[in-house]
């Protein structure tokens, strides 16, 4: 019996080693190319509805004024925040990237998600944190991945992973109907979110011609084609117009 166990154990170890070896990722070229740019915003800046948090005094107390919806956040310099920019296609079919060991954190603080838009790699841990200490449910309305809907009635962190690429997974809290976040799940690390200055950067790209997509929850998507070689930096700007 013990012999059998040893044989099985050896077999399993060998199989696992083989699996690990064949899945050896192609590491992005050290340095590599960079695509960066800004997301401009033109036209009328829409007024965002105010969020009434009077049902949740703990959250309400975290704001000076009245918090507003984050469906459109236009920065002071006229750029658009919360745009998810990523490599949609152009990577070689054989290209794979290992999921980083560290998690991506989504925090529920002040009855809002931080960040509002985020990216994650397939297999990477999403740490969902409740800093509010009041009931939030977090529902991932995934389509390509299996969805989930879990409860967090206290200060706690839950961890979830996603098996398949999906742009975007809608995250929401049903206790607080205004709470929305958007998660892009990709098989690589070439994604970014436009920040407070409207800029984004995709680093470490292998040489090639890429389709870059910029996604915004209200204004939809735009694409650009960019070719990078060596360690050069290329610019790709996007512009969304208010309606």
């Amino acid at each position, binding site marked *: *019996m013990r012999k*059998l*166990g040893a044989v*099985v*154990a050896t077999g*399993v170890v060998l199989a696992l080693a083989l699996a690990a070896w064949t899945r050896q990722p192609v590491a992005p070229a050290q340095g590599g190319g960079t695509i960066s740019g800004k997301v401009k915003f033109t036209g009328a800046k829409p007024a965002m509805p105010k969020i009434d948090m009077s*049902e949740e005094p703990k959250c309400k107390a975290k704001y000076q004024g009245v918090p507003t919806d984050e469906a459109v956040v236009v920065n002071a310099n006229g750029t658009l925040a919360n745009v998810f920019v990523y490599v949609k296609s152009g990577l070689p079919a054989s290209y794979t990237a290992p999921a980083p060991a560290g998690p991506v954190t989504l925090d529920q603080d002040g009855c809002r998600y931080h960040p509002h838009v985020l990216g994650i790699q397939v297999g990477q841990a999403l740490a969902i944190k409740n800093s509010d200490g*009041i*009931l939030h*449910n*977090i*529902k*991932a*309305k*995934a*389509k390509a991945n*299996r*969805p*989930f*809907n*879990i*409860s*967090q*009635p*206290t200060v*706690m962190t*839950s961890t979830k992973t996603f*098996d398949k690429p999906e742009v975007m997974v809608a995250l929401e809290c*049903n*206790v*607080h*109907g205004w709470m929305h976040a958007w998660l892009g799940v990709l098989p690589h690390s070439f994604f970014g979110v436009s920040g407070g200055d409207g800029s984004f950067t995709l680093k470490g790209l292998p040489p090639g011609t890429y389709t870059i997509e910029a996604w915004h929850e209200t204004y939809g998507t735009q694409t650009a084609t960019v070719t990078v070689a060596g360690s050069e930096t290329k610019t790709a700007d996007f512009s969304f117009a208010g309606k």
Partner: protein
Amino acid sequence: MISALLLLALRAAPFPIPHSPFPVQDTVKGKAVYVKWCAGCHGDGGAGDGAAAAYMLPRPRNFTGGLYKIRTTASGQLPTDADLERAIDEGLPGSAMPGWKGRLSQAERRDVRAYIKTFSSFFADTSQHVVALKFSSPPGGGTSVAALKVGRQFYDSIGCRKCHGDQGRGDGPSAPTLKDDADFPIFAADLHQNWRFRGGGSVEDIYRRLRTGLDGTPMPSFADLIDQKFLTDEELWRLAQYVRSLSPKTAPEVRDVVHAPQIPGTVPVSPDDSAWSRVARSWFPLVGQVIHKSRWFAPAVAGVWVQALHDGKTLALRVSWDDRTESPDTAWLKFEQRILETVAGDDSAPGPKAEPWPDQLAVEFPSHLPQGMERPYFLMGAATDPVYQWRWTSRPRRAFAGLARGIERFDTLPGAPAGEATYERGEWRLVLTRALATSDTANEVQLEAGRAIPMAFFAWDGSSGEHGSRMAVSTWYFLALDRPTPPGVFISPVLAMLATLGLGLVVVRRAQRRGAVPSHRNV
């Protein structure tokens, strides 16, 4: 070590499936069953968009996402075959989905289950682990005060009341904002009506829903809370037991007759008078009014509880029903709008626009007690054969009476019942009182003891867009005003018993006397 490795091996590759003793599930035959019986609601492509779907709330299941409410698997996981089998066999209470056990053969049900699974690619994806969770057994003492107190404590601490409300009637502060994954409006369950729970109303069913959540709805899984030691498995059971305790011990049976006992003194006029706690209540289910335009397919009031008393001069009728809102309530206006946009009416309906309608209730009688079984048309009478109705509205808060001559015409009468109503945490309690005999014998029903008085109910929830013909209706039932029991009823059995006793004694005496005298025998 060996067992751990075996476990690993098991996880990596399941054993080859042995030959099933059952015939192979046939998706071709399953399709034929589906097209005939299911597609009308669930749609040809299984997207939950059949011809009848637009009239339903909740909408029929969309099979394409492989997302199911009632499962024994973890949040977001596919259901097991047994889960699907249960839904097909038993149906989903409180929705339009009937049970098919008596209507389709076992083979048909099995085939259609196989076919339904073809609508979502997830079922064919071998990386999906469909594993039924292991559920513990309920701890004892579930109905004790201490157990229910623990359950209630967690009801509060894990935030159930946010949607289900303080008393569990689905009226929590977040309730008017709720929507399902397809953005249709969805009600937080009324926890006082467990016989309408989609996945069953037993304490085991409730516990399972707490563990698994209801996928596609706002109801999350609470399983992680056990892993994170926020509560114990036993405490989750206590919560399930508390939720179970909110509903009656057994699902209400619909009886034809409401008995109004006669009481000494005068009838209670307040809905919260303690006298009502000693009177049996009867449940009358209501359904949407789908006969006349404009029709209404999504009634908000599932039924009414009715109690009745009289004192020889006056009848008091207590009607209570669950309603998430004290309409009109501006907090629910957006919800009402979403309901009107979701539930199709018919061609005659005006464009859907939410308005601050009040809540309403009507109690209907024939204007004269019928001699035989002939009764007026239950749905508000007819032009030539009117019905006498008591009507009550939440705003303005008043009760009045009149003659209905069909759905469109209501003529108010000068005489009105007295009405007193209380709204509290998702429940209306209304007492209507009126003299048994009135002077307007031409129009107002004269309530006589010992007669079967036909009675029907109608309810409107203003915040669900209900008004006019958009309402919930019952069929005819009966009200019986009981006569005080004549003394003879109590005395005659006693007299009979005494007579029997006396006769018995005589017989025994005689027998004893005979036994005492030595019998003569011929030697």
